[in-house]
């Protein structure tokens, strides 16, 4: 009885250890699934995300019609559009989105008639200064006249993400410690 248990125990442990070693060895010879973000990825990271990924917002100010539908749609109120009248012409002096408050729901992009405000695939906004996350799409002192909706639909627009990246890096440069 004791001997049978002995032999059975030995045989079973040897067999299971052998099978376990087969599994581990097979995994040893396989390709690791690590994605070495951020510098050793095969494609740029933003291209690995889905097309309609709801990332950081950007505004192509050239096709914006200043209708303020996005500002009203935002549930949090992180979009601020400043409109003035100069010489009987209505125009925008400020278009600021506080991405720190944004919840990336996409509700602002739905009502936009021209698609000026849209979500990009950018997500790398981490910074040590919250002021860097307020994206201003109109430079200080500029006065932009809103576009006409029909014409705006024909105007070509830069690829998604370019404007957002530019504004983010400009913010970082402004507050960078030398």
């Amino acid at each position: 009885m004791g001997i049978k248990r002995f032999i059975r125990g030995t045989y079973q442990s040897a067999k299971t250890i052998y099978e376990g070693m087969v599994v581990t060895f097979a995994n040893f010879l396989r390709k690791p699934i690590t994605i070495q973000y951020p510098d050793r990825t095969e494609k740029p990271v933003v291209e690995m995300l889905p097309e309609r990924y709801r990332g950081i917002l950007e505004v192509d100010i050239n096709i914006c019609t200043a209708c303020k539908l996005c500002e009203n749609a935002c549930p949090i109120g992180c979009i601020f559009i400043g409109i003035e009248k100069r010489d009987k012409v209505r125009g925008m002096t400020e278009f600021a989105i506080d991405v720190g408050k944004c919840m990336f729901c996409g509700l602002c992009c739905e009502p936009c008639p021209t698609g000026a405000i849209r979500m990009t695939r950018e997500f790398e906004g981490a910074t040590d200064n919250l002021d860097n996350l307020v994206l201003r799409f109109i430079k200080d002192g500029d006065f932009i006249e809103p576009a006409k909706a029909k014409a705006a639909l024909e105007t070509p627009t830069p690829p998604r993400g370019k404007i957002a990246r530019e504004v983010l890096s400009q913010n970082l440069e402004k507050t960078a410690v030398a």
Partner: protein
Amino acid sequence: MSLTLGLLVPKIALVLEAFMRHKILLFLFAFVPFGALAQIDRVMPDVLRLNSTIVVHGNGFKDEKGQWNLVFSGTLHVANEEKKVSFSLPLVRVNNKELRAPLTREFVDNIGLDGGVFEGVVKVVAPSASFEKQVKLTIFPKDILWALVKIVGFASPTSTLPPLWALIVAYVILALFILLAVFSLFAGVASYAERRIAGRMQNRIGPNRVGPQGFFQWIADGVKCLLKEDFIPPKGLRLLFRVGPYFPMIGVVLTLVTLPFGQFLAVSDLNVGVYYVFAVTGFTVVGILIGGFASANKWALLGAFRSAAQIVSYEIPSGLAVATIVVVAGSLGFSTIIERQGGFPWEWFLFNDPFTFMAFFLFFVASLAEGNRTPFDLPEAESELVAGYNTEYSGMRFVFYLFAEWGNLYIMGALVTALFLGGWQIPGVSYAVQAQSPWLIVLGWLIFTLKALFIVFVVIWLRWTLPRIRIDQLMVLCWVYLVPAGCILLLGSALFNGFAPSAVKVIVKALMTLFGALVVFAFFHKTYKTLKQGYLEFYPNPFV
């Protein structure tokens, strides 16, 4: 007349002396002329190495004051030439049946560094008589220094040895190199290798940022640990706490002294190498107990008890498995054990008979337990560390314990290779041929290192394959499964190797080799099938 008196007077003096000292037997022998009973039966050993002692077995060597000498006179066959030799060695009388003469450097000088086969008459010259025997001995003074000389090539083979101070300096430098540089470097690189191998087995990469392919990770870890605060528990015992980590390191480093890295490349090739290794690995237990006790932490103490119990228990099946091998090899010394094996797998002791095959696994499991490696790493496991002996250790002291563990990996690998896998033997090259050429010695060293590193890889592999076993399961495994198995294996091996006819031995050897080849083939076949049905691609490149 005067001759008779001359022979009689010492005899009478001897009788009186024996009578005065109440040595009755000697009193009786005193009446027997010396030469009648005394004879030489045997001169041992057949192959004289530099650290051996010539033993003359015989009968009737009486206790006499005066210098006994052993005189060799005959011819020495060296390579293709013959040399007439005649010199003497001082003898020491052990008892009536045995005389010993240790080989000295002058003897080697006389014979020359290459040694040879001596054929001639060996004469024991006692103060009052002499008797002789015709013998044929092989004198083989090659040792680590010969190997160094040949490899470095600064002295011609038949010249005499360099002066003593140069030998001492060369030995010290070599010993320091092996023990410090090789050991510490290996321990560091082993930690890096383990993390990379662990990563690949877990479908990830492992450290690859610090240096090319992450190779300097261990240096970064070492520097980090050096910069940590040296915290000694205030209620602990300061001196013991500080001394604790050095004991396992001493145990490991002392083991390296007898390990045969190549044909003559052992720092000290002891006749009792295996016995010495077991004696010296006992230092680890002392270090662990000191570490646990000096921590002023009762759970650390309990962890130290468990760990000490584990190591001490597993020394028994380890010793039994090694005894199985010693029975086959006929000697405790490493160089003889490796000499009896060969280069090809069917000449290894692993496939010699089923008993040594099982002894391999027994010794391997016991080594894992001795080295605190998974699945026996309860004392130091990451998730149980709160109750382990190195709980209170931080910084470099902690790293010393780890050093000892990783260094022990190599010792495990080297021991297994030397005992079971044929050591530094090259397939197809015999011992004598390898002894002649320094390039073959270097190749043998390379083969030894590769085999030992393969075993290290298997140990690391097992760490990431098997779960940890509990302390009670550990003890049951040792005392209920391994110790009886070891006893049976030892008995079986002794009976089989002692009494089986050689035809049976050859058949068994062939069957075992076939069995081993089958197991290896089945393993790779199963690996291939697993890879084929998986979703990740086959990527054997270690550099991702």
